[in-house]
């Protein structure tokens, strides 16, 4: 009798946990997550040195406010599972493309664009890199925009580095980008210390 009571309860718990995981993975991602991620690049008060980041990881004071916002945004994004990369690419497609004509105007769309580009750092497995590469092969103007905008950390953790290098060189040789821009996928690059990888 007692076994029959316990057994259904356990199954119920398993179903409940499964339902919770399903729900949390499929929770609709708010676009503001990308605005929050953009704080890494655009916020005046975001810790830049390893010392500051370590310090902020241990405390939740006002000067670490932006750090904790980014940490929460990263968790929300990666909690989406495989859908996270799709959402990131979609934000880049929509908001970066939309921001291009008005690059000198700061807007929420521009922040989402920067946040989306920042988030690419989290997607560096061979399969994910393939997907990101395919996206930029179709939208090389956005690759140019990303490289010109800033030295994003994701430019330096690509698996298919050679293909990235070729894509950028090809685009540059066709006059599609500013000839002054250095190819960030050349192995000697990546001297700048980034911040997203320290989170």
């Amino acid at each position, binding site marked *: 009798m007692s076994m029959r009571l316990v057994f259904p309860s356990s199954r119920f718990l398993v179903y409940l946990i499964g339902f919770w995981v399903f729900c949390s993975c499929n929770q609709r991602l708010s676009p503001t997550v990308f605005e929050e991620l953009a704080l890494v690049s655009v916020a*005046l*008060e975001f810790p*830049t040195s390893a010392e*500051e980041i370590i310090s902020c990881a241990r405390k939740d004071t006002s*000067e670490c406010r932006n750090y904790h916002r980014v940490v929460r945004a990263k968790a929300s994004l990666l909690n989406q599972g495989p859908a996270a990369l799709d959402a990131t690419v979609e934000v880049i497609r929509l908001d970066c493309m939309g921001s291009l004509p008005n690059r000198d*105007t*700061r807007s929420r769309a521009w922040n989402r664009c920067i946040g989306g580009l920042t988030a690419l750092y989290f997607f560096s497995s061979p399969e994910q890199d393939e997907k990101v590469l395919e996206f930029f092969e179709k939208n090389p103007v956005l690759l140019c925009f990303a490289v010109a905008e*800033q*030295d994003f950390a994701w430019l330096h953790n690509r698996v298919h580095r050679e293909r990235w290098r070729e894509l950028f060189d090809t685009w540059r040789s066709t006059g599609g980008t500013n000839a002054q821009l250095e190819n960030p996928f050349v192995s000697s690059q990546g001297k*700048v210390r980034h911040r997203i990888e320290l989170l």
Partner: protein
Amino acid sequence: MASGLNLNTARSSKVRVKKKEERHFIILVGGPGLYNGSDSDHDKAWYNYIDPVMKAAKSGRLALPDEHAHWYVYEPAYKKRWADDVTAPSFFERNLKDGRLQVTRHDHTKKVIAEGASDYVDYIKKKAATYVKQTSSKITVHPLTFDAGFWTELGKFPDQSISRVWFLGHAASDLWLSLEHDSDDVAISPARHEIVKRSDISKNAALARKFASAHQPSMFYGCNTQEFAQLWSRTFKVAAEGANGKVNFNKSSLGDIEASATYGWKKFTP
């Protein structure tokens, strides 16, 4: 014997004159963002970044005798701030943080007008002119309109003539000539054209020839400027200094600003 002595003296004074050829001391002054009551940490006062320069100039200790100081003031930020401050309400507001009454933007603009200036940039120009008269120093104020202008301006100086470059303003690895706020009142970067990027240093490496061999350290007074200073030093082969962490401009002197760097003031040699 006496004649020989005179000749030697004359020769050495001639050498001294040659050594004292005018050198150019470049000071890039970033602008404030608009006053934002919800952001109590930034830009309560419009003059944060020019005040330390003006104080040093007033005392005659800003530049060396053979230096001509050039103040490159980022005009759009000061014009925008003036237009905003001049419409501010004319009452005192209480600073809840420390309980002291703070002079409002209204009083800042009133003071500028009382000095006979038409706006903040005009006030800076008038003050500089006064310091030139009082201290017999050489100061030229150049209103700067966009970041590319800064590199272009450096390129206009004769080779071997720049003694040092200073920056005062907002910074986050790159030098920000202004400041914006997002929808949550968080202080964020200005538009691309209002940023002197760290990556622009390498693109302008040819400017290394502009620096005099007898130079002073280039100083970057802003938050987290150490990486900028390090690359500056390496690229232009000059000494440079910057902050690791935040700095506080609410200080009486440039030395105090250096001392306020959270993780120390960093010095780099080529």
